[in-house]
């Protein structure tokens, strides 16, 4: 099954990122499974997620709430609650993340892999100034003086384009607007030069005008610093702006993976095409929208076969037998659907017309 994962194959064709064929993947995730077991529930949150990511690549996890996007990235940071049972392999830059002891985790978090959260207002500490929070993080990871750390903090705020950065260094989070707070959090995340940056819906809480500013900034920083980035979003438009590769998630599995161009041009999974059709675009006015019927499945009682089958317009009896494999439909483009090849062919034909 792993052989068919797009991520493990060849260089990425989109926009020339991924430094050549020889580059070793920086992030390797194999068969990641997460269960949340407690007295009154037994939820299967992730059911075998595998991918690889090279330096400088941007992978976008796209899906609806409850599909497992956040659980995936939180397992990479080991940020799940103790009641979560995690299995599989996570290797980042040669470090086996799941084997780390709490002490070692402190160095890895922020140093090797770092995260930007959706709500900057709750992720920043309200009782310390922005400058203090960034300087503290730098001093946890590197042996530098207070003054040196503060200077670095100032440079970071300038890098994330905070206007009058010197003054903002002494501002508390509540004194900043949402956009500036999110920039401050990006500065904080980048303060110890991580190799992998995780951004969990970083623009969802922002206004449209500020969202595009933050997206352009992240794109610029990512290109300059060459970090591997995992970007979580539910918004196809945001994915279009930032992703090289995209993985569409549904009930704890990747259902389609590929370059953003391929997936958007010729979606090879009925869920992906359903999602693209449900997005309200400028041509939709005066027509009826085509929503995906029903609601996402209950994670405590998933169907035995394809978990999208109950909502799928092209469902067949074979769909309910077993979970389909992720099959490759073209170079680097794969779909977890028994009709994957037909759908992809259809998409390509529509594109030509």
């Amino acid at each position: 099954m792993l052989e068919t994962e797009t991520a493990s194959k060849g260089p990425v064709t989109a926009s020339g990122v991924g430094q050549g064929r020889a580059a070793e993947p920086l992030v390797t995730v194999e068969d990641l499974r997460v269960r949340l077991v407690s007295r009154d529930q037994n939820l299967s949150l992730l059911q075998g997620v595998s991918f690889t990511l090279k330096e400088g690549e941007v992978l976008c996890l796209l899906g609806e709430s409850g599909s497992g996007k956040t659980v995936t990235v939180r397992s990479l940071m080991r940020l799940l609650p103790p009641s979560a049972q995690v299995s599989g392999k996570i290797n980042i830059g040669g470090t086996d993340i799941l084997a780390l002891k709490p002490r070692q985790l402190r160095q890895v978090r922020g140093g090797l892999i770092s995260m930007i959260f959706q709500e900057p207002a709750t992720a920043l500490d309200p009782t310390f100034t922005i400058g203090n929070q960034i300087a503290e993080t730098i001093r946890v990871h590197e042996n530098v003086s207070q003054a040196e750390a503060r200077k670095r903090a100032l440079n970071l705020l300038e890098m994330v384009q905070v206007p009058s950065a010197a003054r903002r260094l002494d501002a508390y989070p509540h004194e900043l607007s949402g956009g500036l707070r999110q920039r401050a959090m990006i500065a904080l995340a980048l303060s110890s030069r991580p190799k992998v940056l995780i951004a969990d819906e970083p623009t969802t809480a922002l206004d449209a005008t500020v969202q595009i500013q933050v997206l352009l900034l992240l794109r610029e920083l990512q290109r300059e610093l060459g970090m591997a980035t995992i970007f979580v979003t539910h918004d196809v438009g945001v994915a279009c702006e930032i992703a090289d590769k995209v993985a569409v998630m549904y009930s704890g599995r990747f259902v389609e993976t590929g370059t953003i161009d391929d997936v958007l041009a010729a979606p090879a999974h009925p869920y992906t095409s359903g999602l693209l059709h449900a997005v309200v675009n400028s041509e939709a006015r005066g027509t009826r929208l085509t929503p995906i019927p029903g609601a996402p499945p209950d994670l405590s009682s998933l169907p035995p076969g394809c978990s999208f089958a109950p909502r799928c317009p092209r469902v067949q009896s074979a769909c309910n037998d077993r979970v389909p494999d992720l099959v490759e439909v073209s170079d680097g483009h794969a779909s977890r659907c028994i009709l994957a090849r037909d759908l992809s062919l259809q998409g390509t034909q529509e594109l030509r017309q």
Partner: protein
Amino acid sequence: MLGVMPQAREEALRQKPADVGGPRQPMLIVDDLVKHFKLTGGAPGNRPVVRAVDGVSFVVQKGETLGIVGESGCGKSTTARLLMQLVKPDAGVIVLDGEAVDAPHGITIRQLQRAVQMVFQDSYASLNPRMTLEDTIIFGPRAAGKPRVEARNAAHSALRMVGLAPELFARRYPHELSGGQRQRVNIARALAMSPRVLILDEAVSALDKSVEAQVLNLLQDLKESLELTYVFISHDLNVVRYISDRVMVMYLGKVVEVGPVASIYESARHPYTQALLSSRPSMDPKQRRTELPLSGDPPSPISPPSGCRFRTRCALAEAVCAEREPPLADFESGHMAACHAVIPGSGHSLAAKPS
């Protein structure tokens, strides 16, 4: 998809309050609405105020959907709350179907609050977790003096109208439903009051895309079959374009542009509207946005800039923009914009000279 069932529809139309002013009378006329919130702190008598809504006027025709867009803090939600009188306006007049609200010879605030209903963004927070859906929906009609049996029937028909079978859902609690279903319940609660106007304040913003489309279709169906008028507030410009007949753009408590949906989206006149429109993601990975349409955040509504409030972020700003506030000038067929650069004779170098 479950459409509106004919029997439920007839029932609802029977309950509907009579049209008072006739079809040409606008459903809502709002004139010079003002709300300044006093902040705590500072010397008494000299407390700073947030100019949340600062002289907003607009009209909503019968059967029309007015979309209101703008960044957070522009006053769109405050406008909605003022319309419902959930917050008391400092000044301004609201006229519902020819009858002034809270004025001599007009209608009372309670009458307004029956005819105008609201659906909020957070579907979970707006339902009482300890009440069954039926009890939640009955609450309004009961408070309005309906007998218990009649109120219960109204609740069931409202549930049917939003596509939730009362036999299955009436006795359930909010936590047993998905986000989309909960938002349907909120819509049903509004419908049970047989309203004439629905104010939808970011009503679909918290929903997943596939479910959002379901609720938007439902709203379109309900509007048509129940002859409703909508005020639709959202930050999602694509959704507003889809559902609205006319669009109003707000910035820092003021209306900067208003007009028919096609003319706003295809030929926006105000630089702020243009910037908002080009902030939307491109939806095409081959043509990504590279230019920043607008830098910075909106200034504080506590001390807004003099003259035109947008001038501090505007690429076209000139001296005249700081001196005088641009009026909302009429261009063609109801398309109005408040920008010196497009108002002839304003003194701005880009404006046409008066002939």
